[in-house]
């Protein structure tokens, strides 16, 4: 089992790395093609915008490599926050950008004004859905409540192995699991025990 955290020079990869160290999970922080290819589990932490993230991945020529490794090569992949959002076919933050396209659906802004709420959605919120279908939530001893800070959401359309929902004004997709691909809109590295357990569960998937 080899874990790689994808280094695309965004701010704050540190928190995810600190979390992996805390749970005694060895990992490599890299964008080197060989190292990524030799990993069994890939983590893409997401900070910033859809467009910024896709541009950074393109800059380091990682888009088709990741597609090969994950869609064809069966590597486990965990996208966090914007890392989940870019799983979609496209996003409309700062104009339209193509995403990785591994999950059906588009990414757009949460629509909360009708409910008198404001963006970003920030704070602790819960996951609902058929939780027993979730691999990532299976080790959880506490309630699935995690820390969110985002304004956009991946509107997953197809039937996935598991879809998790969260309520903030509207109900939106906050977790998606499709075979070896996992996306979480929240930040497990900021979600105390529940988040650490989720990371541990991901890194132990076989």
């Amino acid at each position, binding site marked *: 089992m080899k874990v790689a955290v994808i280094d695309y020079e965004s*701010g704050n990869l*540190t*928190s995810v790395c*600190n*979390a992996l*160290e*805390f749970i005694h999970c060895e990992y490599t922080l890299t964008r080197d093609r060989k190292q990524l290819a030799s990993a069994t589990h890939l983590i893409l932490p997401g900070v910033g915008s859809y467009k910024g993230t896709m541009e950074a991945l393109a800059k380091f020529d990682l888009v088709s490599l990741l597609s090969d490794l994950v869609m064809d090569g069966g590597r486990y992949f965990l996208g966090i926050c914007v890392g989940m959002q870019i799983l979609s076919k496209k996003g409309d933050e700062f104009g339209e950008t193509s995403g990785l396209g591994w999950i059906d659906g588009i990414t757009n802004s949460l629509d909360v004004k009708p*409910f008198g*709420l*404001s963006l*970003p*959605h*920030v*704070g*602790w*919120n*819960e996951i609902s859905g058929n939780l027993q279908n979730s691999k990532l939530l299976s080790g959880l001893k*506490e*309630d699935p*409540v995690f*820390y969110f*800070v985002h304004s956009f959401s991946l509107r997953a359309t197809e039937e996935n192995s598991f879809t998790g929902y*969260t*309520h*903030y*004004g509207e*109900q939106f997709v906050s977790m998606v699991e499709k075979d070896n691909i996992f996306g979480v809109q929240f930040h497990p*590295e*900021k*979600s*105390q025990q529940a*988040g*650490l357990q989720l990371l541990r569960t991901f890194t132990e998937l076989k």
Partner: protein
Amino acid sequence: MNKLKTRVIPILLIKDGVLVRSRSFEFYQVAGNPFLQVDRFNSWNVDELIYLDISRNGEFNVEDSSMVIGSTSSMKKHFEKPPQNIFEFISYLSKKCFMPLSFGGGLNNIDQIQKVLSSGADKFVVNTAAFESPNLISECPKKFGSQSVVVSIDCLKVGDDYEVMVEGGQKNTGLTPLEWSLEVQKRGAGEVLINSIDRDGIGSGYDAELFRPIVNSLEIPVIICGGAGRVEHFSKGFNEIKPHALAAANIFHFIEHSDKVIKKHLLANEVNVRF
């Protein structure tokens, strides 16, 4: 529907390198070495941690702390080299803190703020500087994201009204808390932290008259602080004020397992909190 949880947030006050409690903004020492208690704070079942450095000399002085506490064997065991400045301290704090971490205390320029965030804090807290440098807050959302900007507002009751004080409660701004809260919201603050100077350390409960108008008028989240001396104050404060977050400083040091006790109490009173 909105299932966002109401947050419970301890505020950890550090003065000249030592953990302190406060009363009406005067400070007493708790036999507290912040370095040795960090793991304990990180393990609390709370939703965020806010560290405020209220040293008056403008610099986080680790050496003072070592002098007060002594270069004890426990300090030596814990550190090869103790943090030498606030940025190293924040970095140390953040390595094992897996909930949102905010840091504030005398921050007054963009470079400092940048370093606070890159050292590992998720949010930074500004107080006096927000008032004295009008452009400071407006520059930050673009650079760091509005969610990282917390403006702290200290309020003192003067006659029948409340006034915003800066410089650790020493200087009157001539503004009301509501006026100033609306202004900082306009400038791009992500959250406001409203502190009641009068209720600070008194333990008589949250001041609804101060907090309620602000919570009702603002779109951004409001964190209230000052006066929580008993567990019951948390549910009373929530029911009367409905803030996004309930913060407190002293109580977390004086009640056993306060984190769990407070959360349990809130749940029993049907407040939507994470437990």
